[in-house]
């Protein structure tokens, strides 16, 4: 009896509830994450560093979508468009206008947010399946603009982007640490994951304060929320702005890291991946978006590295049977299906259950 109570620190004040890292394990976890962040760039090779950079960028985009889907209950297939807007905005602001960092990044995020604010009101009248397919229309229109607004986007063949992350002499692509020069990938790994932390905490703060609660109220029963004085228009459009801003920020980081973007980068598949990330990670959990993004970015790479041991799979499909990529595509599909069927709350829920098990040990609940 008493064990249960003492296991978790009692919250005696409201401030305890509001604290970012509420329990000691959570605090320890934060320290460990910090350590991991410091160490990882030095133990990962160039290839895995690249993968983790992409995972970090995807995390930011997924956090944005989770704000919209997990909190406001709006499913969008148009997320890739805002990601694309951020990428092209980075090309324009940094490369052509010569804005320094962090101005181009902020400007890109604002540009995405503004477009999100324009689109948001359209979604107000629509619900459920209809909204999903209308957002598919947004994607088609966005791609058309990317392909045809040649003076800005470079058209079908895309555009090279020089958007460097440097403040004064501190250039992320050429950091030195204790006299050792870090590679570009290592530098971006530090930078991108620092951005994930900042933007993740910011999103977490939005989610647990008034706007977050208002959005959840709308998500759960919009009419009821309106009756108690939560303005649907205000908060739903706000969620669109914020979510698009996050996506655009991720897109700008992508453009900065990849240094070349083309309309193919911002396809329906990217939108689907974002949705898959938050579903696998955990709808309505900010850290779930990060878990999902890392999981889905790493999964194909892990499958590749173990596929040598699988008899029916080959790297190039030369021996008949599946290629690794086919297996990846199929696994991507199977995983989405499996998570939705067996663990609809995603990795975040698995994590929570795992930690709860240890917390309440030796009792099962």
């Amino acid at each position: 009896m008493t064990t249960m109570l003492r296991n978790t620190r009692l919250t005696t004040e409201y401030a305890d509830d509001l604290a970012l890292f509420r329990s000691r394990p959570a605090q320890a976890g934060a320290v460990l994450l910090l350590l991991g962040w410091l160490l990882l760039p030095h133990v990962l090779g160039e290839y895995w560093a690249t993968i983790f950079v992409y995972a970090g960028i995807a995390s930011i985009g997924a956090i944005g979508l989770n704000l919209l889907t997990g909190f406001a209950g709006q499913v969008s297939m148009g997320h890739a468009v805002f990601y694309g807007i951020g990428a092209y905005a980075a090309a324009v602001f940094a490369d052509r206008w010569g804005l320094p960092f962090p101005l181009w990044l902020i400007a890109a995020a604002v540009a995405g947010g503004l477009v999100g604010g324009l689109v948001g009101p359209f979604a107000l009248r629509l619900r459920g399946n209809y909204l999903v397919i209308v957002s598919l229309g947004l994607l088609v229109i966005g791609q058309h603009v990317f392909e045809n607004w040649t003076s800005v986007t470079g058209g079908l063949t895309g555009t090279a982007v020089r958007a460097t992350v440097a403040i004064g002499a501190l250039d992320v692509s050429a950091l030195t640490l204790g006299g050792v020069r870090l590679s570009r990938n290592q530098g971006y790994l530090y930078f991108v994951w620092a951005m994930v932390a900042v933007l993740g905490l910011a999103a977490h703060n939005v989610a647990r304060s008034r706007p977050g609660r208002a959005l959840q109220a709308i998500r759960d029963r919009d009419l009821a929320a309106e009756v108690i004085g939560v303005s649907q228009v205000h908060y739903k459009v706000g969620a669109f702005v914020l979510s698009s801003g996050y996506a655009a920020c991720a897109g700008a980081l992508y453009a900065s890291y990849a240094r070349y973007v083309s309309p193919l980068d911002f396809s329906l598949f990217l939108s689907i991946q974002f949705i898959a990330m938050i579903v696998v990670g955990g709808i309505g959990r900010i850290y779930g978006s990060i878990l999902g993004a890392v999981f889905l970015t790493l999964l194909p790479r892990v499958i590749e590295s173990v596929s040598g041991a699988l008899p029916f799979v080959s790297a190039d499909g030369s021996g008949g049977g599946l290629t690794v990529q086919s297996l990846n595509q199929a696994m991507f599909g199977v995983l989405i299906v499996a998570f939705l069927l067996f663990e609809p709350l995603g990795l975040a829920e698995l994590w929570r259950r795992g930690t709860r098990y240890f917390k309440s040990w030796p009792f099962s609940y």
Partner: protein
Amino acid sequence: MTDFAQYLIAGLALGSIYSLICVAFVVVYRATGVVNFAQGGLVVFGAYATYQLIAWQLPFPLAVLLAATVTAGLGLLIERFVLRRLVGQPVFAAILITLGLLFVLEQLCTTIWGYDLRILGDPWGVRTWRIADVTVKVTDVWTIAASMLALVSCFLVFRYSTIGIAMRAAASDPEAALAHGVSPQMIQGIAWAFAGVLAVVAGVFIGAGSRGVDLTVSMVALRAFPAAILGGLDSTEGAVAGGLAVGLVEVMSAAYITPNAPWLGANVHVVIPYVLMIGVMLVRPYGLFGTAEVRRA
């Protein structure tokens, strides 16, 4: 004028293909409330299956019939092992699951049939009739006829058959239907099997003649979405009307807008159906023929 008539037939034929896909959307949506993004996967599977059976020297009608049976079986399997477990999940869950199925189905096809272009081997080929100055493709006539047949049979089944009445009952009040001995599982299984049959018909027309079958066949389903939304997701008449409308709009805009308004960008005919869809949605959020959802606080 000849050109216009030519475009009209082309638009109707393209629209009929969209209609076939949309009717499948509607049948599944009415029975299960799921927007089926995996329909494209069923279409490409159906097209490949037909190709395979023709390649095995089966006569064409028999090949289509057999392929329809196999694909219907695939639809049943999907319903039985995946969708049935999805009861009570939110909207995006169903959509995402069908997207996941799409990826699995596509890889299933490439694993069986590889990546090369396959010529279907249908009896129509590229034969045409000439009426006045207008060329009428034999395939187009069959496509239009098939989609009309699908519409009429859907209408009759929904309206008069026991299964159709059961489907409507299950859709309007599942609990009451259950109390009257209507098994929702059976209804949903039938709907998916029917979607499989329609997929084969659509797949055959998409791959007919010199068009050939490969993985890109599944992309057509995405182009059909605005049609489904225009008509309303729960109306078969709407699906056919929406399909025909989108087919016509696509062909007409390719004919009259693309060449005359280069400032709109190349291939604007792909975008216009979606713009139209968004416009209609703003006025009628449940499509032209769809039923508005009654909401309570």
